[in-house]
C-alpha cells in the first residue's frame, strides 16, 4: 500500500515535470511569435528617421527599423572572390554577322591566360544548321550560365557561380573528377592532364603567383579543370576581356546587364536595345542553362564565309612556340 503510494507520487511528479517543461517551451515560443507580430505597432511611438529611396523620394522610417549595413564599410578589405563584384552582372553579346574567323580572340586569350595545352579555352566553330542554310563562324566562350550544369554536379564546390554572373573555378580545391566537363553542354572546359609547364613552354616565372579564380591559368594546376573566366582580372583594371579588345572586327560586346550597356571597345550600345533590334538569342536556349552570352544572327554579312577558311585549323587551337 505504502509502496503504491510513493509510486503514484513519483509518477505524478514525473508527469508534472514533463508537462511543466512542455508548457514552458510552448510559452516561450508563443510569446516570441506574438512579440514578432506586435513589433510594428509597439515601437511606432519612438522617433523616426528620414531616408531617401533609390528613386529619390523621401520616406520616414522608424529608427528601430534601420539597420546599418556593415558589409559596405570594409568592403575593399573583405572582397569575397566567391561573391564577386557587388551590383554587377556581366554579359557578352557576340555579333555573328561580323565574325570572319580572324582568330585574334583566340590568340589573345591563349596569351592572356598562358595556355600551354592543346585545347584553347575559346574557339571559333564552323557552323551550318543544315545543308541548305548558309555556314557561319561562331565564337564560343564559356557561356557563364545562370543555371550552370557544371556547378550543380561539382562535388566539392570547386566551381562556383558568383552574383556578378561569372562561373569560376577554384583550382586549389578541384579534385579532378571531370564531372563538370561531362555536364557542360558547350564543351568549354579543358583539363590539365599533365604538368602545365608554363615555366618551360612560355619561359615564365610563376613562382610567388598564388592561383586565383579571377585569373584562370595564372598559373594552371596539374589535374584540375580550366576554362574561360570572362577575365575578371581585366575588368578589375577597368579593361575589357582579352578576346573583346583583340577582335579586329568588333564582334564581341562586353558589359553589365544592370547598366544595360555593352561595348566592343569602339561603340557602346544599350544591351536590351541591341538584342531587340538585331534579334539576339542564346545558344541552345532549350537546355534551360540561361547563358550570359548572347548571339546576334549572322545576317547582312560584309565578308564571305570562305574568307575565314584559310585560318581554320581543325586540329590546332593553341600555337606552340618554335
Amino acid at each position: 500500500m505504502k509502496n503504491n503510494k510513493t509510486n503514484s507520487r513519483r509518477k505524478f511528479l514525473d508527469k508534472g515535470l514533463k508537462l511543466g517543461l512542455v508548457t514552458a517551451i510552448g510559452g516561450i515560443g508563443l510569446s516570441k511569435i506574438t512579440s514578432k507580430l506586435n513589433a510594428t505597432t509597439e515601437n511606432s511611438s519612438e522617433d523616426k528617421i528620414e531616408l531617401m529611396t533609390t528613386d529619390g523620394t523621401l520616406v520616414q522610417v522608424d529608427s528601430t527599423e534601420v539597420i546599418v549595413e556593415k558589409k559596405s564599410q570594409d568592403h575593399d578589405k573583405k572582397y569575397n572572390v566567391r561573391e564577386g563584384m557587388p551590383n554587377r552582372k556581366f554579359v557578352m553579346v557576340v555579333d555573328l554577322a561580323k565574325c570572319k574567323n580572324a582568330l585574334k580572340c583566340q590568340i589573345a586569350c591563349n596569351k592572356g591566360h598562358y595556355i600551354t595545352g592543346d585545347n584553347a579555352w575559346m574557339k571559333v566553330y564552323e557552323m551550318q544548321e543544315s545543308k541548305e542554310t548558309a555556314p557561319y563562324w561562331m565564337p564560343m566562350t564559356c557561356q557563364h550560365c545562370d543555371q550552370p550544369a557544371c556547378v550543380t554536379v561539382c562535388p566539392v564546390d570547386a566551381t562556383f557561380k558568383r552574383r556578378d554572373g561569372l562561373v569560376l573555378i577554384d583550382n586549389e580545391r578541384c579534385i579532378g573528377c571531370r564531372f563538370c566537363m561531362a555536364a557542360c553542354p558547350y564543351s568549354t572546359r579543358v583539363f590539365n592532364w599533365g604538368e602545365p609547364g608554363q615555366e618551360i613552354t612560355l619561359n615564365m616565372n610563376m613562382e610567388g603567383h598564388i592561383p586565383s579564380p579571377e585569373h584562370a591559368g595564372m598559373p594552371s594546376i596539374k589535374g584540375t579543370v580550366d576554362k574561360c573566366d570572362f577575365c575578371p582580372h581585366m575588368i578589375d583594371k577597368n579593361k575589357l576581356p582579352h578576346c573583346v579588345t583583340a577582335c579586329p572586327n568588333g564582334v564581341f560586346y562586353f558589359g553589365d546587364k544592370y547598366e544595360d550597356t555593352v561595348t566592343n571597345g569602339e561603340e557602346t550600345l544599350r544591351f536590351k536595345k541591341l538584342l531587340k533590334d538585331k534579334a539576339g538569342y542564346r545558344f541552345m536556349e532549350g537546355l534551360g542553362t540561361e547563358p550570359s552570352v548572347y548571339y546576334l544572327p549572322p545576317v547582312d554579312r560584309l565578308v564571305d564565309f570562305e574568307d575565314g577558311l584559310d585560318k581554320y585549323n581543325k586540329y590546332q587551337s593553341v600555337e606552340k612556340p618554335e
Partner: protein
Amino acid sequence: MNAYNSLVKDLAPKKFNKPSIIWVLFLLIIIGAGLIAYIDQLIKGQEVTNMRDYALWGIYISNFVFFVATSFVGSVTVAILRLTNNEWRTPLVRIAEIISVACIIMAGITIMIDMARPDRLLNLFIHARLQSPITWDVIIIPTYIVISLLLLYFPLLPDLAILKKYYAKTSPKLSKWYGKLSLNWKGSKAQKAIQTKSIKVIAIMIIPVGLLLQTIDAWLFSTTYRIGWDSTNFAPYFISGAFVAGVGALVTVIYIVRKVNKLEKYITDFHFDKLGKFLALACLTYLFFNINEYLIPAFTAKKGEAVHLKTLFTGLYATLFWIVTIGGLVLPIIMLLFKRGRKPLPMFIIGVVVVIGSWWKRYIIVTPTLLHPFLPIDGVPESWHHYFPSLHEWLITFATLAMAFLIITLLVRYLPVIPIQRTADEQKISVSEKKSES
C-alpha cells in the same frame, strides 16, 4: 566417419594446391604491374592515359561501373532469394556475398584511380555538396561496403565456431583466428535469435541500398545533358544490367570454386539449372531495357540521338555493340532456354561470356557518348577525336580486376564457401550425431 564430420571435412576451406598458388602469384604480378603504372600516373598526371578533353572519362569509369554492377549480386541473390524463400540458394549465397564484397571494395578503389587529384580526396568530405551525384556515391558506396561485409559476416559466425574446433589440433594458429572471429559463438538459443534477427535486418536493408547504389551510378550519367546518357530509362537499365553482371559473375566463380574445392556433391546440376533460369530472367529484363534505351529513341531520331545511335548500330562502335548485345545478351538467353544449356559447363561458358560482355557494355555506354558532344570537336589534335585506352590504363584496370580476383581467392581460401551449419541443419545431421560421437 559420421555424416557430420565428413560434411565439415568437405566444406572446410582447402589449402592452396599448386595451380592455386600459381594463380595467386599470377594475380600478384598483374597487381604489381598495375601499381607501377599507377605510381607513374601519379607522378606524370593523367596525361599517361589516352583520356583527353573530349573523351574525358575512359575505362577507369566503365570499369568502376562494372564493379558496382557486379557487386549487386549480393543484394539480388542473397537477399531477394531469401525473401522469396528459395531454398536452393543455400550453397550459393556465400560465394555471392564474397563476390559482392570484393567488387564493391574494388569499385571504391577504381573511382579514386580516376580522380586526377587523389591527394585532395578529403575535399569530398570537407567541402561536400549534397547536390552532386558524386557525393551521393561517396555516401552510398561505403554504406554498401559495410552492409555487404555484415551480410557476409553474420551468417559466418556458426561456421567460424565449427572451424575453430575443426582446426584445433591440425592448425592451432588458424583455429585461434577462427575462434576470435566467431565472437564466442556457442549456438545458444539467445545467440541464434540475435543472429537470425540481424541477418534478417541486413538482408532487407541491402535490397534498397543495392538498388540505390545502381541508381546513383546511373544518375552519374543521366544528370548530364549528354546524348545517350540523358535518359530517364537509365536507373532501371543499370539495375537490370547489374542483375546480369552479378549473376553472370556468380555462375562463373561458382563453377571454378566447385571444381577446385571438389564440391560437386553440394553444388549440383539442380543448382546450375536454377541459376540458369535466374540468369535468363536477368538477361530478359536487361534486354527489355536495352530495347527501351536504343530502339525507341531511333523512332523519333532527334538529330543528336540519330548520330549517336548510328555510331552504335552501323558506325565506329557497331562491331563491339553487336557483339555485346547479341553475344552477351541474346545468345545467352536462347541457350539458357534449353535444359542442356543450363548444365554446369555450358553455364560456365555463358557466365564468362556474359561477364566479359557486361564489361564491354559499360565501355559502350561511357565512350561513344563523350565523343558526340553538342558542338563539333574542333581545334584539338586528331588523336583527341577517338579514344582507346593506353597501356597505363590497361595495366591499372587489369590490376583492379586482379585485385578483385585476389580478394575472392583469399576469402575462398579461408572461409567455408558453402555454409556448413546451414547445410547440416538442412540435412538434419547436426546436433544429435555430433553428440553421440563425443
